[in-house]
């Protein structure tokens, strides 16, 4: 027999199997349960919101997210005579406040992370890190009250300044001179609340910048700042964006602090300095207390919409992180 015949056609890859040990199987079961439970809980919440809100959303149709009317009238027996539920103003307000917050918080957080990692002496670093972590654990109502009592009067001054010099840009324009309780104030409060998370994520990714590249930069006569620009920031860019998106998510879902400082008005308002705005979560807290069962269903629907909006934002964030992640490493 000749061995010259090409064997390629007759050979199939072997099936390679591994027999996991019993302990491995048990452990795999435990971690799988842990991993799936969060998915399960989240899914059940979404399902619950959808189930409760379904009726309202079907009646309202697309106007649930495109109109800005929120009214319900009932007769003496409590039967709903007429209802109109529209979230457009609240959705715009949610996005506006959260964006203001991230725009303010991101540079502050990145600079504090850089300071903590590369400039602060050790004793100061320890103090600052625990202070920032404490900020994250601070009850949001206190931020809200502080924002209302302390921040508002001074923010008004800055708002007027912004309007005066940047008023030609539409979002800094203002038609009615009402400067208090604006999305801008809410954004500043939210910014302070999301600084800890963005700082701590940034600090983590900056600290993982490869030491040999850092040394390479220094060995080429780089100053510290030049080194940071060349090595640390490219390395950490995608992580920082991820942290900013976490902050954005938190800012979109924040309830009490926004409710405390913001003047909730059912009208789409992109003018960030004007004292009128909204936020889906604060709408829920505003209406929940004395809502009829039917209106509560509408609020559940609103919760579902916020939930989906957050998912969309996170999805976009993941795409951005994926796209920027390659170049830096």
């Amino acid at each position, binding site marked *: 027999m000749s061995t010259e015949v090409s064997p390629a056609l007759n050979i199939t890859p072997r099936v390679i199997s591994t027999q996991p040990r019993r302990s491995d199987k048990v452990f795999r079961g435990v971690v799988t349960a842990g991993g799936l439970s969060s998915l399960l809980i989240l899914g059940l919440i979404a399902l619950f919101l959808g189930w409760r809100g379904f009726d309202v959303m079907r009646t309202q149709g697309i106007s649930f997210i495109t109109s800005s009317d929120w009214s319900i009238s009932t007769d003496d027996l409590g039967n709903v005579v007429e209802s109109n539920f529209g979230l457009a103003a609240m959705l715009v307000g949610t996005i506006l406040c959260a964006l203001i917050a991230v725009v303010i918080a991101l540079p502050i957080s990145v600079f504090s992370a850089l300071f903590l990692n590369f400039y602060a002496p050790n004793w100061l670093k320890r103090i600052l890190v625990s202070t920032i972590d404490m900020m994250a654990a601070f009850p949001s109502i206190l931020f809200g009250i502080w924002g209302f009592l302390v921040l508002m009067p001074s923010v008004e001054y800055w708002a007027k300044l912004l309007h005066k010099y940047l008023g030609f840009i539409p979002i800094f324009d203002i038609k009615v001179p009402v400067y208090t309780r604006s999305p801008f104030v809410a954004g500043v409060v939210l910014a302070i609340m999301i600084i800890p998370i963005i700082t701590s994520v940034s600090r983590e990714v900056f600290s993982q910048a*490869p030491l040999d*590249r850092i040394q*390479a930069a220094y*060995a*080429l006569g780089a100053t510290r700042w*030049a080194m940071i620009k*060349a090595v640390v920031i490219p390395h950490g860019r995608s992580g920082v964006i991820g942290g900013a998106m976490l902050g954005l998510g938190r800012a979109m879902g924040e309830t009490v602090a926004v409710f405390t400082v913001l003047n909730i008005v059912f009208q789409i308002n992109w003018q960030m300095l004007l004292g009128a705005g909204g936020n889906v979560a604060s709408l829920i807290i505003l209406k929940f207390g004395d809502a009829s069962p039917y209106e509560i269903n509408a609020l559940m629907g609103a919760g579902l919409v916020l939930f989906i909006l957050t998912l969309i934002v996170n999805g976009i964030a993941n795409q951005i992180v994926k796209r920027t992640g390659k170049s830096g490493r």
Partner: protein
Amino acid sequence: MTTMETSKNMSTSNILPTTNVASLEARGIHAWFGSHHVLSDINLDFAPSTVTALIGPSGCGKSTFIRTLNRMHEFIPGAAMAGEVLLDGKDVYAPGTDVTKIRLKIGMVFQKPNPFPSMSIGENVLSGLKLAQLKVANKDDLLEECLERAGLWKEVKDRLNAHGGSLSGGQQQRLCIARALAVSPQVLVMDEPCSALDPGSTLKVEETISQLKASMTIIIVTHNMQQAARVSDYTAFFLSDGGPGQMIEYAPTSDIFSRPQDQRTENYVTGRFG
């Protein structure tokens, strides 16, 4: 000695200043990490346009020593040093010295190739200019010049915009050499530059070293004794007997390998330990 001959064929640079080859002197260098004394009383002179090899077993303080020369030692928390490093007679540790200028004059090539991952090949070579905020008249010429001198030009000239990470390990190391050359250092210290490379790439780097000698003073740490014999003019043997590392012997390379004065040197270079 074929590598020595190629150095004579090298065209002299017309872009980089090649006249400022500097001498480097180490005077009574001690080094500590915390309370751990790792290097004791090293005195060494590096003459202009020579290659000096530092040999010795692991942990004898060779790398620590060269890192005291360009002030990279002080990055390690708890690191301390004593003594003087004189670059053309001026102490690099003198108060008021701009440390970034020192590192520009004393370039460094590391053990593991470390090109900047976010930059292209071309950007990597010129990164030193940006990092140290230097201006150069013609960047393209400098780029070609540095890659040529590092022996990499032919291999990368058609893909200067590719990522540095797309090169092989040996090419990456020569890219790092080209990067160090772009800021025209007077002294180049190399910390086991070939230990992560295959023999072919090692040969290329050694050829590069021999060619660079004309325009700079080179100090190379190596564990490869044949390499020390091939590339260096002088060799210093370092050893730690459990305490801080010391310099046992310093002599022209041929003497170290043919008639070492110290028994320990002989044992090491003949492969009896280390």
